[in-house]
Structure formats: C-alpha cells, structure tokens
C-alpha cells in the first residue's frame, strides 16, 4: 500500500487528525506555560523575556512554520472530513438520535473547531500579526507584548470573546484528547481510562488558565 493511499483512507485521515491534534496539544502546553509568566506581577519583565526568546531566536521561528503547518493541516482536514462525513447520509432521520448514546461535544467537533478557528483569527490579529509585521516578518525589533495584552484586554467584548474561545477549546479537547489516542490504536482499557482522565484534566486546566489571562488584565489583578 502506497503512503498516499494509506493517509487518504478513512482511517489514515483520522490518523492525520490525531497526530496534528496531539502536536497542537503539545503547543498549548508551551503557550500556556510561557503566558503564565504574566502572573509574576513584575510589570511583564519575565513574560517579555520569554516572548522575546520565542520571537527573536532563529530556532523557535523555524519551528513556528511547523506550528502553522500543523494548524493548517488540522483545520483543513477537519473541515474536509466534516463535510465528507455529513454527505454520507443524504436523507436524514425525522427523529434525531440526539444524546442517546453519545455526548453532544463528541458530535460537535466540527462546530467547536470552527468556533476556535474564528477565535484564532481574532487572536492572531491581536498579537501575532502586529508583532511579526513590526518585525518585518524577520528577526526585527518586537513590540512590547505585555503592554499590548494590557491594552487589548481593556475592552469588555474582547475579554468575552476570549473566554468563549477558551470554552470552545475546552469542549473540543474533552473529546479530542481521548479520541486522538483511540484513533492511534490505544485499545487497552487501562490506558484508555488513563488518557480519558488526563484529557479531562488537561481540558479543564489549560483553557481555564488561558481564560484567566484576559480576565486578570480586565479586572486589574495584574498591573
């Protein structure tokens, strides 16, 4: 079997979703850890040092290309699968099955993913894009990202959008985390229970930490 056949089969496509999903989960760990430096409450000194390293060092900037590629594949493949799968039942049921047998969020990965995508566009236009364009998309001088955060998170609707984005991410992860490992072939009950617990913990802690960032600035918990 050719690689191309393998990764375009129904199972291969899900493997691509699972692998890019786990890659993005790993990225979230880096992102949340670095951003948590805002709570050092040192006027952004520690945070800006970390942000500066990520933005002005060659290796993280090269890795950033991989990150965008991961996002791109996960989003495009996810949308394609959603539409393909929906087309497999042209005539639907008069009485929907609803929650009889599955959780709403497991059936709504496409919707939740799309909400996260909208959030991502807003988020990138707030931070990544202005910063990189200031740098001339190379290794030029960066803007003060801490000050930028403080400024952006003064607007109420922005804070609400960020919190909603984090909620979408949480539900997406509750199913996605465990499902990725099932797709990669973890069939052992002992390990599945572990990944489920780990997934729920991750889905609560990481999005909660992210959501608390705009809230902290808005409510003036950090100056």
């Amino acid at each position: 079997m050719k690689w191309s056949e393998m990764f375009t089969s129904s199972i291969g496509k899900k493997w691509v979703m699972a692998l890019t999903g786990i890659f993005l989960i790993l990225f979230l760990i880096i992102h949340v850890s670095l951003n948590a430096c805002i709570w050092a409450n040192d006027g952004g000194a520690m945070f800006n040092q970390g942000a500066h390293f990520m933005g002005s060092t060659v290796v993280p900037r090269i890795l950033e290309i991989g990150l965008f590629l991961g996002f791109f594949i996960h989003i495009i493949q996810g949308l394609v699968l959603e539409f393909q799968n929906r087309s497999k039942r042209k005539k639907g049921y008069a009485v929907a099955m609803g929650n009889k047998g599955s959780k709403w969020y497991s059936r709504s990965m496409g919707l939740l993913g799309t909400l996260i995508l909208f959030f991502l566009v807003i988020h990138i236009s707030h931070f990544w894009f202005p910063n990189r364009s200031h740098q001339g998309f190379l290794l030029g001088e960066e803007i003060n990202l801490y000050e930028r955060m403080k400024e952006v998170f003064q607007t109420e609707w922005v804070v609400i959008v960020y919190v909603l984005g984090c909620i979408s991410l949480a539900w997406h992860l509750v199913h996605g985390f465990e499902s990725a490992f099932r797709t990669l072939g973890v069939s052992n009950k002992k390990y599945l229970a572990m990944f489920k617990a780990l997934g729920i913990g991750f889905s609560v802690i990481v999005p909660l930490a992210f959501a608390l960032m705009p809230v902290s600035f808005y409510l003036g918990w950090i100056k």
Partner: protein
Amino acid sequence: MEQYMMNLTLKVWRQKNSADRGGFETYPVKNISSEMSFLEMIDVLNEELIIQGKDPIAFDHDCREGICGMCSMYINGRPHGPWQANTVCQLHMRAYQNGDTIVVEPWRANAFPVIKDLVVDRSAFDRIIQAGGYISVNTGNAVDANAVPVEKDKADAAFAAASCIGCGACVAACKNSSALLFVSAKVSHLALLPQGGPERKTRALNMVAQMDKEGFGSCTNTGACEAVCPKEISIENIARLNREYMMAGAASAK
C-alpha cells in the same frame, strides 16, 4: 408483570422502491398486547392493511430470536428501539404505554439504500466480508483443535467481537454513517486468533478499502454505535482496527 392491552399511533416510513421519494404514513393500531414483540405488532397492522386491500409494510426479519441480524428499524430516534443490547424482534410492547405514538424509520445511510419501506440494502456489508473477512484453510486432515493454543483473554475478546450479527445498527446510529464498528469486529475476531494470522495484514487493508469504496463515513469515536449495538460490541475493536490498519499499511512493501 401484568399483561395489558394498548392502542397506539404508528408513523411509518413508506417508500414504494429506491427511486420513490417516500413519506410517513400514520396508522392507528388497536388491541395490542404488552406481551407481543414489536414485529408481531407490525404483523397485526399488516394483516389489517391486507384485509383493507392495501400494501403491507415491508420490513426485514428472519429468526425473530435476536441472533440473525435481519431486523432493522429505527424507532423513536434509536436503532432497534429503546432497550439496551436488543434487536427489534426482541423488543416487546411492554416498552410502551396506551396512547403512545411511535415513529418507525429505516436505517439511513447512502451505503444502505432503501429497497422498500423499512427494508434497506445491506449488501455493502457482504462485500466488505468478501474483501477479507475469512481465513484460508488448507485441505488435508482437520487439525486437532487443541493443537493450537489460544490465550484465554484473547479467545474471549475474539468471541465477543465474533458475536457481531452484522445488522448495521452501528451505521444507522453513527452521525457519519461509519461502518467501523462492524468492520473492526470482523477484523478483530480473526486478528486475535492464530488461525487469522496469515491474512492478518491484507485483511485489515482490504476490508477498510472496501468499506471506503461502499461510501461509509469515517469514525469520530462518539460511541453511539457501541451504545445501540444489540451485541454490545466494544469500540475497543475500533481502536484495534485503527492500529492493525496503519501497521499493516506501514509494513507493506508496495
């Protein structure tokens, strides 16, 4: 439980043939005993329709013992009706009360086109089995069964997977019309046993290829299939197939 009688309203999908658009017909059914099976209740309705000179409702059924996998009705939003680990033929009318309205639909999936009324064409499953759901046995003397040792846990898991009756409820329940629970049960029950060893890799590859060709969707691990499966086939089998397939694909030299 005390036997009781009930009158019901049935909304049944009627469709002359695969080209017909079809639609719901409403039928009042009277004097139904709580001890009847769901299919017997349909039999009573059909007798009446025949007496009235109307076309009886076409539906699949065979053993009426819950083991053949022929019956296939989507009742009030759930394949095989409201009971857990149950087929329609084993669904009894004590599940309902006097005055209930019951909506009956056929399995819905592009890969399962409606032939007539509640009967769908599930020959896609047969073609998936033909693609690899078998073992090759060389001719000659039959080998003594005890000469091939099988680990108890694996034998149990293989038997559990082999209990799949191929009814298609998994496809009917899946939001993606995925047949992965069925295919994974068929792959698992052979992959777990030494007799399935020689064709293990080609089996996973060929059955999945045929499944994709038949127009089933991909698996999102929602678990709806497992919840409605009359034989309680576990979605652990799906994870096993995901592994079997990719390992076989990666190992193939072509």
